[in-house]
């Protein structure tokens, strides 16, 4: 049964690459949660809006690619700082539902602002890489997915270094541990919150470029954000390696189940399987694979 085995490996390789691309988006989510305890239900919209900015810069203003990418990164950094200053700083210390709903509201705003200012049609986001998949025996590897996977792994390495070694990263970990003590140690907590959101902006911008190239840029790009939740729950909400592991698990599971189950149920397993997996994971290990367990006191 070499064909079946080949099919299985094809699903596996696809799953790994897609999983790494999910991890890229999940990294942004985890960063913010780790540093500021806020959840970002607008992660998908961040990706969408940055993809839109880059695509519009290329398409409408005819900017060269590197200018467009820089513009995308810069605008997301500025947006991250602004967002923290205007919205999230006022929600510090409020119940979970407040932040959840605020970011859902933000998602709604971005969904309105994006198409009405940057164009509602689907744009392409061409990158100077070949379209032809790399064929390795039974495997077809699209270069863009390879690029996405590499970017994701680079960020994993970069953030691991950042949080372990750099001064700012250590400050962020201190804040995540205990905000008041961090403040007492002279850490400017609010500025680091802004920094965390700006870093999320950078990750989202790169996610937007990679995913935008893969799917085309329009409002539906934000739907990749819905995949973030299974990823981060599986990996643990505040763990950066967890985001990558979770991404890999989700990518593998959805590709393999979609490959084998879809023919019998008429499609859609891709969007459904990760959530079932997530519910099971929540039942067994509510704080994810690498997440920190919360101890509650009255």
């Amino acid at each position: 049964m070499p064909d079946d085995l080949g099919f299985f490996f094809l699903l596996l390789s696809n799953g790994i690459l897609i999983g790494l691309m999910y991890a890229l988006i999940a990294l942004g989510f985890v960063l913010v949660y780790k540093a500021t305890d806020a959840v970002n239900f607008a992660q998908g919209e961040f990706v969408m809006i940055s993809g839109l900015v880059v695509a519009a810069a290329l398409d409408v203003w005819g900017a060269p690619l590197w200018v467009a990418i820089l513009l995308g990164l810069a605008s997301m950094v500025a947006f991250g700082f602004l967002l923290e200053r205007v919205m999230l700083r006022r929600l510090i210390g409020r119940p979970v539902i407040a932040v959840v709903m605020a970011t859902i509201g933000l998602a709604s705003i971005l969904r309105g602002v994006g198409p009405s200012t940057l164009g509602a049609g689907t744009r392409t986001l061409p990158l100077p890489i070949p379209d032809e998949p790399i064929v390795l025996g039974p495997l077809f590897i699209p270069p863009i997915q390879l690029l996405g996977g590499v970017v994701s792994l680079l960020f994993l390495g970069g953030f691991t270094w950042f949080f372990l070694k750099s001064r700012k990263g250590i400050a962020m970990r201190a804040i995540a541990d205990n905000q008041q003590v961090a403040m007492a140690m002279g850490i400017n907590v609010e500025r680091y919150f802004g920094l965390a959101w700006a870093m999320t902006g950078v990750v989202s911008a790169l996610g937007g470029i990679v995913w935008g190239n893969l799917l085309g840029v329009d409002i539906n790009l934000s739907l990749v954000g819905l995949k973030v939740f299974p990823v981060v729950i599986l990996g643990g909400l505040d763990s950066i390696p967890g985001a990558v592991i979770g991404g890999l698990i989700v990518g593998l599971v959805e590709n393999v189940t979609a490959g084998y189950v879809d023919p019998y149920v008429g499609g859609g397993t891709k969007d459904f399987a990760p959530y079932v997996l997530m519910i099971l994971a929540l039942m067994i290990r509510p704080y994810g694979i690498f997440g920190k367990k919360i101890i509650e006191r009255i």
Partner: protein
Amino acid sequence: MIHRECGVLKTSYEADMALYPLPIARWALAGLAVIFLGIVPLGLDEYFLSVANLVSVAIVGALGLNILVGYTGQVSIGHGAFMSVGAYTAANLANRLGSPWPVNLLAGGLMAAAVGVVVGTPSLRIKGLYLAIATLAGQFIIEWIINHVTFISGGVQASIEVARPQIGSMVLSSQRDMYYFLIFFVVVATLGALNLVRSRVGRAFIAIRDQDIAAEIIGINIFRYKLLAFAISSFYAGVSGVLYTYFLGIANYEQFQLGVSVDYLAMIIIGGLGSIQGSVFGAIFITLLPIVIRRMMESFGGVFFEPQTVLNLIPNLRVMLFGALIIFFLIVEPEGLNRLWRNIRNYFRIWPFAY
């Protein structure tokens, strides 16, 4: 000026437990009854009555969600899915067995309650954000099942037509008939919720919201009460879904997607978490928002923009304003419209002697 609370001396337990102890409140209620049972249905045309009917459906759903989120503190992003469970249960019963609407209504509510308990089970171990994401998963899974199991969805379009409800031999065909039909359930649901939250069960819910570990220590069985909160909330959602199905004449899963769950959350946030009155305000506000925006833009949008731009702008403006309002209320007035209303009322309560 408006009313005085002094001189209201209660001499019996019944008077003490009355929902509306003040004479002025009873008068206001009577006035509202006259407006909503007489003037509104007789004075408005079919279009505005259909809007009022949408509001009625939303009120029932929002009350249910507020019991869960506002009173028990369990965040749920799956309310739309519970509504769809009720809707499809009723539609299937009506078409397969030809059962009358009261049976369908009850069955839809109970089925949604059962599903709600299942989806709410993780709440025993997890809370806050994790629970929110678990209910989000519930939303997707229920949506997928309804969409893919043809026994439930009834075929390709996943929509089932339902005949108009009948009372005796009278078919409720016009919007006015539906208005009376729905307003009855709004009243029942509101009274039910008002009485629930001041009962033993409601107080247990509030204790769980404020600190669930502390609630457990003082002897509240949080296992039972959390699931009960999910069951009651989903029952409301199911009933609301059935009512919506009868209102539209069709059960369709597209009416109950993630966006609907978010809409209901927005209703209770903007209306006021943990407030019955707030649920009503929020339901009215969120349901009217897109309609008002469209009307405004159609009338005045042409002054600022070209006609084509206006058409493109309307749906985007709706989502933008929707998001902006949620954030505005969260930051500026976390207790929502209900708090604004209380502020106004308190101002007049002691007017003109403000101190």
